[in-house]
């Protein structure tokens, strides 16, 4: 193999960096063009999974009370930046309602059901997110 000229050598050595920076540019451009579906799927999973991980009870098919507590523990902030436009209103409403739900849950007397703390609108919004997840990510 003949020795490359200094100029050609410099080009060859710089080529991998050029390819790498092109990939970086592709990622950044790709982020701008993504429709948000993939981000939403990941974020929804993360938001719910983290809640389940944190609550982590040993036993029990989830009761309505469990569902309320899971909803309250949902990391809604994770979804706020990753939600497609058509679901943004539902996420915004949940983001507004969840802090109060968390306080109400803390104040709930022992033995009382938590289901009354959740408004029908909140249930509808949470269901809309769950349905969207099922349709877009399943």
């Amino acid at each position, binding site marked *: 193999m003949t020795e490359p000229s200094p100029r050609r050598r410099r080009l060859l050595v710089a080529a991998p960096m050029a*390819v790498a920076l092109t990939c970086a540019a*592709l*990622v950044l451009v790709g982020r701008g063009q993504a429709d948000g579906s993939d981000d939403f799927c990941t974020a929804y999973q*993360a938001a719910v999974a983290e809640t389940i991980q944190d609550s982590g009870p040993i036993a029990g098919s989830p009761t309505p009370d469990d569902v309320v507590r899971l909803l309250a523990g949902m990391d809604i902030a994770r979804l706020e930046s990753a939600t497609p436009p058509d679901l943004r209103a539902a996420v915004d409403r949940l983001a507004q309602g969840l802090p109060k739900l968390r306080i109400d849950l803390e104040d709930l007397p022992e033995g009382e059901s938590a289901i009354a703390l959740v408004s029908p609108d909140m249930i509808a919004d949470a269901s809309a997110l769950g349905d969207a997840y099922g349709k877009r990510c399943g």
Partner: protein
Amino acid sequence: MRLHEEPTGSSTPSSEDRPRAARHHRLRVPASDRWVIWAILIVFTAIPLVSAMRVSAQGWRPTGDVATITLRSSDVGTADTPLIGQPTTTGAYAGGVESSHPGPIENYLLFVPVTVLGPIVGPVVGTGLLMSVTWGLILWLAHRRGGIVLLALFAAVLAAVAVGLGSQSLHDPLNSEISLYPYVLLVLATWSVVLGDTRILPLLVGVASFLAQVHVSGARLVLPIGLFVGAVLAIQLRHHPRRRRRAKRSLGWAAVVAAVLWLPVLIDQVSGSGNLTSLRRFVQTGPRGLGALAGLEHLVTAIGPPPVLARPGWLSFIQVLGPVQVVLAFAVLGLLGGFAVDRSLRGERRFPTLVLTLGVFAVSAVAYTASVPSTGAVRADAFRWMWVFGALVWVTLVWAIWLEVKPRLARKAVRVAPPAVAVIVTVVAMSSVIWTGLGHERQGPLMPVIAKVSAAVRGSTPPGEYRLVMDGSLWELETGLIVDLEDHGFHLRNDRGSRTMGEHRSIDEVPVDAPIGEIHIRASDVEPPPAGASLAATADVDPPGWPTQRYWVYVRSAP
């Protein structure tokens, strides 16, 4: 005394880097280094096993999927010997195709420890032993490739991953987690064969088969790497007849290893469940994956800075990094590529072939990640390649810098630095054992619960054949309970299907009117007892950090 170290103060290629060289370092080294190398090898090889023995003494026991792995391992050598791996989740997707992970290799490897040490201690100590062997092979191969310098650097990879992921990674039998350190061995073995060290080929086939069998993620990662190695070997052997003669024996042994390890899978394919066909059908008709952009994002997250293994939080691997970090991560890759081209133009092969191997690994990992269904996006165990790749990239960069600055360093610094680094990373790696404990184990709080519920059943019910029914309790508890009760002479049947635990544990294989009893466990006494059953025992459990829970054990005797 033989040590092929690169000449100090020279930028010319070493004997190791000559084009046709596949030379290796032997463990016969200068006396001053010898004790360091042996000490590192012994300490590192002991770490996973010690960690496993420690957690076992603290009350570790199989739960969830690990319990089914244990049950199937104890079936090896019987009429119900497993021919395929653990069940996959492919059936949960639209148009679901039931399937299992490709092969039973983990069950075969754990058969001896489970048989000798029992189903409670055997899985964790057996896995610790397996990881000890893996760590030993990694460090041996690292030394073979680059003496004490690469030994120290790969020891740093192991220490970083062990500390980053915690002690559980050293002995976890879960099939999706057990691949972690074998990925490092895969990279090293691939690099060795690409470099012309064909004697490593049987080892490469062995570790690649292990990774491909235990989990579909491993299979998808290994397949492109296998094609790459095949192509490189074909080119090498075609152009170098002398090497072809030398490689014949290694190729033969590699073929034997492949045939032995894949025989059960082929038997299943021909006369069993046809699992490979199910997996292929899922790949063809399954849900769409995360896409190429997600694959590249994961690559960036793996590298950082900071790399995924240095970032806290159990969802750190899906953190989206900022634009500066994206550019920096790819710049690191570009830098490695530039170093590789530069050294290749100087006639060296060692560094460029390592970078090439990492490149192929990266492409395989991106392609695999792009194919992961969205619902699997938050499963860290599906992306363990990220921890290994992140560590390898940074360590390779350190090696590149070392190769560049070494000629300018004083002779004494060159002699002292690698052993010093090796000793430091050994201490770091040892620290991972200190943190071993049930609190750091997946489902650790569940382990004492299983022991207590099992004791309640055993204290109230004579051994025999029963149908096991669990109400409102987690799947993890059920499988762990079956392991414990089987160990005490019970034969339990359940409705999880034969794919999970074998036909001999499936209730589907028993006639409806068969004279077997029933053990019914509930987490609530709100409902009336099951028909014909009476309360045999209760078990109160309060695992640390979890709510107190009472279990009710009802038993209906055989008619």
